[in-house]
């Protein structure tokens, strides 16, 4: 799952380059420019992907070690 999370981060970076909306000025809902809506979706998607990262890719070993060494040293 850790690799899936990192793949999702790469996918976000690729999807962020929405070259397909370059010339499109459609107003979604009559007010929201489509490219802005897409990019807003990227922001929300980023929040979700990073949420997954905190569950599946959290560096627990590193943290535990830092905690132990700090406590041992104090």
């Amino acid at each position, binding site marked *: 799952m850790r690799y899936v999370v990192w793949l999702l981060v790469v996918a976000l970076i690729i999807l962020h380059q929405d070259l397909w909306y370059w010339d499109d*000025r459609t107003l979604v809902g*009559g007010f929201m420019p489509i490219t*802005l809506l*897409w990019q807003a979706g990227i922001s929300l998607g980023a929040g979700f992907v990073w949420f997954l990262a905190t569950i599946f890719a959290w560096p627990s070993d590193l943290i535990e070690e830092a905690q132990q060494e700090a406590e041992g040293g104090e």
Partner: protein
Amino acid sequence: MVPLIVICVYLVLLLALGIFASTLFRGSSQDYMLASHSIGPFLLLMSLFGTTMTAFALVGSTGEAYAEGVGVYGLLASSSGIIHSLCFFVLGIKLWSLGKKYGYTTQIQFFRDRLQSDKIGILLFPILVGLVIPYLLIGVMASGTVVSAVSEGAFSNMFAEYDYGVPNWLGSLVISIVVLIYVFFGGMRGTAWANAFQTIVFMILGIITFWVISDNLGGVKAASEAVEKRNPSKLMRSVAESDEQKYEKAFATWQSLAEYNYANKKANGELLTPEQKAKAIADYKGPPIGNWKARAEANVAVANNLLNLSVAEKNDAFMEQDDRVMPKQKPQWWDKEVMTGHELNEYQRNEDAVLAAYTDPIYNKNMGHPNDLINPDKPELGTKWTRKRTAGVYRATKWSPEEPRAMSMLVFITYMFIPLSVGMFPHLFQHWLTAKNAQSFKLPVVAHPIFIAIVWIPCVLVGVWATSAVVPGTERALIPPHFNTNAVLPFMVANMSGPFLSGLLTAGVLAAIMSSLDSQFLCIGTMFTEDIVVHYGGKKRFTDKQVLIIARCFIIAIVAITYILSLYEPRRVFTLGVWTFSGFSSLFPLVFAALYWKRLTKAGAYACVITAIGLWCLFFYMSDMALNPHFTVFGMMPVATMVPAAAIAMIVVSLMTQPPSEEHLARFFPQKKA
């Protein structure tokens, strides 16, 4: 005066909060600089977010969206949502764990230790401080602009040369002093509390601002439809054909004006007969504003085929009319081809030329106190003009029309390098170290991209709407051409809300500015004491109290330097911000390699830093010290050259030099337990 009172009340509240936070101060330098590693998830989120959201995010994004359209959000905001959290995750947690293990307070301490090099600190210190100063400058400059814009006409007979409002220099000074006071007394704890408070303030008030402005523009649909009708290019990243045609037509009209002025000057003002001049004025149908008489006469001169200028003279005329700096050596095509609008825009404009408007009767005849009527017998003429408006009329009626610009795909893609700067911001490094535990990072990592969207989307929409807002009941643009982009947000706030709300909303903008300034002030004070004074003076030489005093004195000195710099020529907030970020981004390979690449050597690190900063200085110089907002290298953002070049230099030199010992590396790359 009401907005000014509201702002003052807000500043007093902020100071009270700073003083309250100082009561929690434990008196040690560790507590002053790192809040004794006691910051939990919520406060960490607020302080990290408040620190990264600056004048750049509010004032800059609105102004840039006004100039370049909705693409600005994708340029920096959504990419930041991905990259900032990536940096918190990949760098922040690891640096926090190393900081906890080895007791680092600053970035330089980490690099000195990791690279076993004392002198890397000497190299990095001036670079990091030097890059933080323009970042500070953005906040200090923007705060002055905001306060000045919202306080126009607040005084009856003081500060006439500042439109009877608070001068920029005074606004910047007050904001700097307020931030200085709570940083001075509260340290990191005060800063974290103030950041949290101010982040809540600017987020809530930002949403209210958005609602009020959209309501005044007739609702979100009406505001966006007006853009679709008047400036469709602002809704996408390329140029709409209708905008292109509108520009070509406006440019041709402007060319006639420029040629007429030049030819008339050549003819000692007698190009037209008095009868022709009278007829021109009688026939003129445009608004009688600025140099409208010249426009009227230009029409007659063109109709009578009186503009007999050579190609070179025409080009000279365009440069003169547009206040461009004439090149010392004119290109070969100068006397063969008439320049296009795009070619004209390649030449630097003398922005100081606008000062002439204040003494020129063509432009200054309505200038005065903005609360007084131009003509008491004719109240429909409105109130007197501010100096800003007079300068605006000068620009709008004298300078060439603004060329619609498409966003370059290469520029858009390479903007992705800019948010990497977060990995090397010294103030963020310090904030990471304040975390109570690693769990504290989870909330900032997840919420940061969403918070960015909450702040940026309204700002970008307001900036885009501002391009097409009109004076109620007319078709006249609310914001004239060549408007100072830094002032778009305060202008919209001041024009679209009542005095009380205007003051409140301005306080929100100032909150965003101050929540970044405080961390930066504190960070450079910490760097100076830890990396220079204590490092070279010795830990035993100074008491904890003396270290605190030195940190505070250095902070005052840096604030003073930044403030003095802010009094000089202003740049576009967004452009200046991008340069600062580019400098930090170009150092990203160093911090990444220090954490993940065992083969990094001291010499490789030097090569990285020298290449990064060398290229930064070169490109900054080539961009006319940030005066050219569209400067690119190989058609890309300069940072896209700087980051790979610094990385390559680092890798090549590291591989050519002796690797660090296994024993040393074991401290930073411990064996994973099976």
